[in-house]
């Protein structure tokens, strides 16, 4: 990797000067926005990883009582997968300059995301109806907290998604929203992977 090659160099040597004087551009071969999103995703990953570590640690204590996963969570998972696929379809549309595909992909992706959020609310209501209540059960507390944190990240993504849709609606060229659409798709894939990991974790615990 360029970064590790660079930090092994000896800047005080003449021979290194010749190489370094011609050096131009970033250390990582990608646009700044894409790099920033990847770093952000890494930070979010740390947040959720630490939460899961805390979950695992808390499981070891005597009062831990597993909770069932309502069936609707499986449906929500399918909706989130659909949302991610739609976003990727939108990216393909933007790359091939197919405006209708881009618009449809974004709209389906956004709609599925909203449906997912509504579904997650239903999960909470169902668990409440089954007689579970968060404070009495740490497993449920974690489920609610992680679900809410994941939902907040989807809402954040929807803000960027909404800006992109509005720009398209105002008639901007498809190629001008290519980068944003790609970033949205990448973020959605990440949120899907994250939810998949959490979901598996909930099921096996």
């Amino acid at each position: 990797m360029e970064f590790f090659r660079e930090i092994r160099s000896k800047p005080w040597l003449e021979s290194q000067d010749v190489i370094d004087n011609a050096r131009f551009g970033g250390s990582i071969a990608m646009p700044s926005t894409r790099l920033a999103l990847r770093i952000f995703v890494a930070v979010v990953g740390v947040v959720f990883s630490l939460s899961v570590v805390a979950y695992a640690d808390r499981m070891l204590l005597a009062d831990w009582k597993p909770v069932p996963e309502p069936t609707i969570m499986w449906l929500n998972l399918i909706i989130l997968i659909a949302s991610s696929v739609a976003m990727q379809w939108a990216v393909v549309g933007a790359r091939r300059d197919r405006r209708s595909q881009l618009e449809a992909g974004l709209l389906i992706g956004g709609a599925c995301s909203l449906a997912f959020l509504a579904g997650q609310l239903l999960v909470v209501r169902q668990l409440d109806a089954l007689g579970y209540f968060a404070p009495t059960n740490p497993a449920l507390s974690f489920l609610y907290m992680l679900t809410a944190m994941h939902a907040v990240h989807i809402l954040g993504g929807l803000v960027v998604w909404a800006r992109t849709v509005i720009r398209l609606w105002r008639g901007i060229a498809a190629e001008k929203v290519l980068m944003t659409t790609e970033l949205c798709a990448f973020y959605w894939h990440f949120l899907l992977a994250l939810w998949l990991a959490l979901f598996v974790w909930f099921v096996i615990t």
Partner: protein
Amino acid sequence: MVDITPEKVENVSPAEVPEADLYHAHSFWTKYVFCQDAKVIAIQYSGTAVVIGMVGLVLSWLMRLQLGVPETFSFISPESYLQFVTMHGMIMVIYLLTALFLGGFGNYLIQLMVGARDMVFPYVNMLSYWIYLLAVLILVASFFVPGGPTGAGWTLYPPQAILSGTPGGTGLGIILMLVSLAFFIIGFTMGGLNYVVTILQARTRGMTLMRMPLTIWGIFTATVLALLAFPALFVSAIMMTLDSVLGTSFFMPAIVEFGEQLSYGGGSPILFQHLFWFFGHPEVYIVALPAFGIVSDLLSVHARRHIFGYRMMVWAIVAIGALSFVVWAHHMYVSGMNPWFGFFFATTTLIIAVPTAIKVYNWTLTLWRGDIHLTIPMLFAIAFIITFVNGGITGLFLGNVIVDVPLSDTMFVVAHFHMVMGIAPILVVFGAIYHWFPLMTGRMLNDAMGRFHFWVTFIGAYLIYFPMHYLGFVGVPRRYWSMEDTNFIPDSAADLNAFITVAALIVGFAQLVFIYNILVSIFKGKPSERNPWKATSLEWQTETVPPGHGNFSKELPVVYRWAYSFSVPGTVDDYVPQNVHPNDVKLVEPEGS
């Protein structure tokens, strides 16, 4: 070792950045308030950090008054004393030092030192400051809510942090603290993304990673650390808020309070401690690494000598950053742990001393045979080395389980961490301000007031913290409002406490002289030269001082060498700026030519 390329080289064409890429302010509000220029944001960050830092300073005076002359001030109750301890600690560590080093120096220096026009995401950068300000305001608001701010100690350990016996434990005090921390972290993440991406992607032509000044390496690594460590505090803040507000039991065990069984059950206070210190120990280096970087540059510039072992200094910064994530439980020896874990964390704690010692040796060797100018920045830099070594060595004591357990809850620890992550970084902050003030304002700070400020601060800090080690040895506990009739503590401890209080008040007032110096010098200070310290790094090579909008002229500078070309043999001047073309370096005429 050769510092420049003596032969004629092919010219490298300068890089240009289209004006359209730059942020342009169009009104007073967008130029000075909601501004996206990193230099203005840096000043906003610094100003806010200094103001809240002054609050932290006043709180420390109040604590010292209570310890020095107990039962004299009726408004300092046991509860308010604990609140002062808590707020002082949190303010100084998070809202002053972290914000000042990364938000202040980071914003001002990164873009200038790497040769960029601005940060890569100016709008997000601006949002970062305003969210930081919001976090500060929420924190300050906790002073005015019923019950006052939290008095749980800056570590906010549950279960006591959210119980009614703790000041602010069941009111808004603790909630506001946790919410404020959450906002701080969100704001910092926005800024941190900017710092990292700007350093990685927006450097000017020729500015390789290994030509960057160590200041930038320190800020870069500290930012990466913060991005990875703050999530632990964020998660624990959310979970504790839920425990406090909704009655969940993430951290709260089954507990009886004043004879009443609370509804909590089964939670793990130790889990909180792990999360907190997984953030808390890297936080030490989030503060220290920028200080390491800055002090390296101050020493090099003011000793007119290249930094000794540049590559090793970079690697040491990175190694310290990595190791800082595997030492956290040395803060938890007294919480109890498997002896093998204690052994592991004691070992990693000793290992982290190795790269740290390399840095100290290299700083010392940078001074060796240097043309040392005892300017005020240099005085502060040397004072930092001495203080950091003193504080670091007591850290080696405390890193060992068997020594830590008896000393952990005593004033020895207070002395240790104030020396190593309070006084030492603050000395660098002062040195850095004296060094870069001419760049920021075009004027010099008053030298006489500066020297007064330095000597009172440096000697005063030792008068405060050296005796505190002794207090710790004789068993004076920390966080105690009063010793009263504690038999095992000798009377001399009270006298020493009174002495420390006098020293603390004098040092505190010396800081007012510093602030007066700044305020007066901004308007009436002696105009500075463009590059008064004859430094080589790019921030001093701008078209105007202070640097204008876009930092550099139409063409961005091209970098031809590292930032440490001082006293290069065969050159006329004792420094060669990074952007001077090798063909333009004035060489000494050979004798007889």
